[in-house]
């Protein structure tokens, strides 16, 4: 089965991104395909590259990066929601004259069209809200 996953919740503020992460790991273990993970609304905060949680806490953002690295999962952050909240890729930061980009490794920023495309390619679609 091919899954498209949407995440609306910010890390730490609710459990949505944790639940989604565990679901995705389980789906991969069972041999399913993750077409795309799309982060929308406050879910975009899962892509904040400068997060530095204490060593004894789960690395919410770091483990997304690891998921992308190990399994090639496509982590897409919605550009309009990201810009509104101040999360910028390197290209956008340069264009906007900002000091630096703050997107975590393994994520990319793109438009809502990629979410629609994922839904059309997938067999199953789930929303993890918060």
């Amino acid at each position, binding site marked *: 089965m091919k899954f498209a996953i949407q995440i609306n919740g910010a890390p730490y503020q609710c459990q949505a991104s944790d*639940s989604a992460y565990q679901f995705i790991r*389980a789906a991969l273990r*069972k041999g*399913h395909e993750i077409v795309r993970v799309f982060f929308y609304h406050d879910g975009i905060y899962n892509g904040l590259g400068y997060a530095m949680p204490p060593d004894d806490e789960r690395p919410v953002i770091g483990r997304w990066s690891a998921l992308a690295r190990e399994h090639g999962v496509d982590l897409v952050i919605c550009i309009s929601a990201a810009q509104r909240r101040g999360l910028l890729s390197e290209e956008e930061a340069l264009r906007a004259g900002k000091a630096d980009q703050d997107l975590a490794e393994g994520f990319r920023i793109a438009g809502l069209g990629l979410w629609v495309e994922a839904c059309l390619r997938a067999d*199953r*679609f789930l*929303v*993890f*809200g*918060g």
Partner: protein
Amino acid sequence: MPVLHVVSGSPQGSHALAHCLARVQEGDALLLSENGVYAALVDSAACRSLNVFPRLSVYALTPDLEARGIAFDELWPGVERIDYEGFVDLAVRYPISLSWF
């Protein structure tokens, strides 16, 4: 086509469960996740509302139950405990998933 309803809000803290149960139909499945698992406590008011459809399959995520200290003997007998791989199997079985939060 039956629907998988995923309820993540606490039964008393949010209206997610009540709103969900008002719209389920026979043959649907209900998964209690995150704070939604509190509805599976056998002596709770929320638990009594889970029996509304005999053919509604009710599940609860084991890691969420454990995190919240809900032991096996505190669970309503009508709820089946599953792990995340079981959640994946449900999502495969039910073509439509609707999240209530």
